[in-house]
């Protein structure tokens, strides 16, 4: 009789990396639905194309690296990366934009570094930043929320959205289809009081950007779901959100023409919630100890605000995350946990 010779422990709680990633995918649903509701079918088409490209590129990279393709695809991490990148891209992005982005995410940021677990930078954010720097026009053309689009512009249906993405039909580039985002408006404003600005532009909603606030709330719900399922700890997202709140409170400036916007405007605006719960929590590229994660999250929050206020990009989460990815090993070095029995050593 051949008895198995393995070392302890012999039992396992049977949660796999693949299942963790599936939960993450599930948790993006509320936010994705909100985005679709606000901006139309574009986000879903982004996701569809990104996932197809990601699987294809991941599989070919694994094949070239002579790794078992199916085994690694089963961890779902390529799909998660693709979905996260697709959510960050403006809806109705062209297929080649998505392909280039996925190439940078999967091939450059992940596989060239040795695959899952060895990437020092968040792959989705590497792809996003590469696109933002390479194709600033395409990357800053956010469509207006459907409800703010003039009646003269027809909203593409799902099939048309797909054809737009595949460059079969032209993307409607007329005014009214794309609009400056609320973050842009606040940054560029130097003459109106904040309240006047909000009253003048329809892009502002109840607390933050019109529609944006719902997308942010959607991602908040998804994030809380993952927190409840203990997929990550609270440290990174909460410290990041707190840092953004504190920074924006400091520079709120009472709503003057120089104001950077209210804390609520920042918390529910742009990619804040998406970044806090889905990007900053990427474990591979973040700090490891809980103390380290607080510093890491706070760093992202502070940098996000600084870049939003004084930078030149539509949003800042991606840059903030990448900059903190650089710092993660340093943070790890200084934030080791104190193990059992070390508090009372003489």
């Amino acid at each position, binding site marked *: *009789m051949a*008895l*198995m*010779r*393995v*070392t*302890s*422990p*012999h*039992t*396992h*709680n049977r*949660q*796999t*990396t693949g*299942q*963790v990633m599936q939960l993450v995918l599930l948790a993006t649903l509320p936010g994705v639905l909100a985005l679709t509701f606000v901006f139309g079918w574009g986000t879903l088409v982004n996701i569809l194309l990104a996932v197809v490209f990601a699987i294809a590129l991941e599989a070919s990279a694994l094949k070239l690296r002579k790794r078992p393709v199916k*085994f*690694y695809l089963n*961890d779902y*991490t390529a799909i998660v990366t693709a979905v996260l990148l697709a959510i960050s891209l403006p809806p109705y992005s062209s297929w080649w934009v998505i392909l280039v982005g996925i190439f940078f995410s999967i091939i450059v940021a992940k596989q060239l570094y040795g*695959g*899952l*677990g*060895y990437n020092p930078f968040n792959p989705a954010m590497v792809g996003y930043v590469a696109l933002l720097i390479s194709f600033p026009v395409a990357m800053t053309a956010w469509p207006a929320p459907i409800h703010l689009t003039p009646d003269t512009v027809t909203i593409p249906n799902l099939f048309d959205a797909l054809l737009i993405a595949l460059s079969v039909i032209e993307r409607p580039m007329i005014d009214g289809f794309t609009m400056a985002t609320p973050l842009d408006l606040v940054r560029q404003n130097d003459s109106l009081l904040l309240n006047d600005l909000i009253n003048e532009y329809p892009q502002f909603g109840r607390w933050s950007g019109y529609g944006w606030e719902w997308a942010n709330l959607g991602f908040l719900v998804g994030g809380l779901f993952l927190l409840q399922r*203990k*997929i*990550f*700890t609270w440290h990174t997202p909460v410290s990041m959100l707190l840092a953004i709140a504190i920074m924006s409170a400091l520079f709120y400036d009472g709503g003057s023409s120089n104001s950077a916007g209210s804390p609520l405007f920042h918390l529910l605006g742009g990619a804040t919630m998406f970044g806090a719960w889905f990007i900053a929590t990427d*474990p*591979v590229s*973040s700090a*490891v*100890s*809980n103390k380290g994660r607080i510093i890491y999250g706070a760093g992202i929050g502070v940098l996000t605000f600084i870049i939003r206020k004084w930078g030149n990009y539509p949003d800042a989460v991606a840059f903030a995350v990448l900059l903190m990815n650089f710092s993660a090993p340093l943070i*790890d070095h200084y934030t*080791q*946990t*104190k*193990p*059992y*029995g*070390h*508090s*009372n*050593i*003489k």
Partner: protein
Amino acid sequence: MRKIWDIHGGVHPTENKTQSLSEPILQAAIPPYLYVPLSQHIGAAAKPIVKVGDKVLKGQTIADTSAAVSVPVHAPSSGTVFAIENKTVPHPSGIDDLCIVIETDGLDQWRERKARQNFNLFTDDELLSIIRNAGIAGMGGAGFPAAIKLKSSDSKPINTLIMNGTECEPYITADHSLMLEKANDIATGLAILAKIIKPKTILFGIEDNKLDVVNGIEAALNRIDFSTHSGCTTDVRVVTFPTKYPSGGEKQLIEILTGKQVPSRGLPADIGIVCHNIGTAVAIKDAVCLDQPLISRITTVTGEAVKRPRNYHVLIGTPVSFLLEESQYQADQNNRLIMGGPMMGFALADISAPIIKTSNCILAPTEAELPTPPPAQACIRCGMCAEACPASLLPQQLYWFSQGKELEKLEQHNIADCIECGACSYVCPSNIPLVQYYRASKTDIKQREIDHRNAELAKRRFDARQDRLIRLEQEKIAAKQARQAARKKANPPNNKPPAANASAANADTAATTDNTEREATVKAAIERAKIKKATHSKTTDDPVARAQAKREAQLAQDQADPEAKLKRAVESAQQRMKKLQVKLVAAKDSGDPNVNILETGLEKAQSKLVSSQKALDDYKKASNSED
């Protein structure tokens, strides 16, 4: 309710404890052969004191030892010593080790026993020696000899005695059933412990999945007046706390019950605590009151591959296969055989391995129950392991450094504080066998320490040898100078009073005798060294080592006899000159352009010959005048 504390991390694996508790403890039958390993715990192995063919009685000492961290071994039943040989022993590596094999006679006949009704009549030292001689090693897991743990130390007084009735590993119910059925024995054993340790507080820790034993234990404890035994006011409490793995680890239990942490690399005694397993208490009671050594224990046999999971009172040395038979083992359904629990137990290589003093469980699971681990995926540093780690370590970092064999980093990240509980591997979504990496790394670190120590030792030896050689040389020079000085005094250039002269001569003689004696010892030492070198060079095949040895022997000889050295110098100079002359003639004949060089060489050789000849003459003169 006494306050309890929480520990960091921990996991909640399925308990699976009810299966083996459905029936009471059963006395297992006596197997035809008992295989009693001589090393069943931490520390030195015992040495057999019986011969093959000897008749042994149950409880008779069959192996003993004088080592400090060790205990004797006893015959678990009566019979004949069948063999003393290497047999499979329960060990993670599956190695063979020396066992005494006893062919049982089925009579189970005890050696003579002296029941001790009142243990208070004995001194602590007597009790400690009874416990040691009864072969009692911790029954909780590591099997540390109990008597050593009990020995008091004035520098580290013990305030708190903790009884560990936690049994946090899934499946295992050996302690649970013991608490259910032998509460009074536990209490008596605890009273003996209290008499020896004299603690102010006794805490009896039980996880809240065993609340059914609490009443019985409390009743049994209430029957005993611990303060009389300990000689001080002793507060005894049964403390229950939430079930969580690994609450039963000694360090973890101490934190749960007292809120204190055992210092890293320290012992519980450092903070005035000592912790004993309830099984140990029962063994101590049997040893002290009934004069019965540790020859049996309670072992849980469970898992879906046995039809009758239950607890057995089983003789040490009973083969696991024999015990499994009694539980209707389904070998074809069993995928691995674990000694211990599913979290920290180890897979047995051989079903014939015997039960030893630390074997609390035999787990025979089916594939569906404990499936073969799937291949490990990449670590995504999710941090679930860090959340689960009861030692508050960063397992994902340790894994990273283990892979890279970065031993310094591992030590910086306190790998030594890992208790190998397996909580990190249990939660790892990538199925990485983390504990296995840590074990390997700990071994690497240990090996490196040994290597460092050896290198350090070698260096010290080398330095000492160099120092010695220098010292000998200096002594020789000093002796020579002393001789010369004495000679000068003996033949003073001007006239001195005869008395002074005489005393100088006396001193000279004394110095010479002294020197000759010393020289003789030095020579003898060198001679020994030469012999050693010679034998050494014979045994070694390395030509370099041989050449070195030869050269060193030569040097030693030179030191012993400087004249020979000088003579050799003259000889070699002569030889060299001859060779050069031959070469020069040949070169001149053939019109070689190197003639000039050869001529200079010849000149040098000549001067060398002259100087070495002079040195030899000088030496001869000097030694002649000395004589």
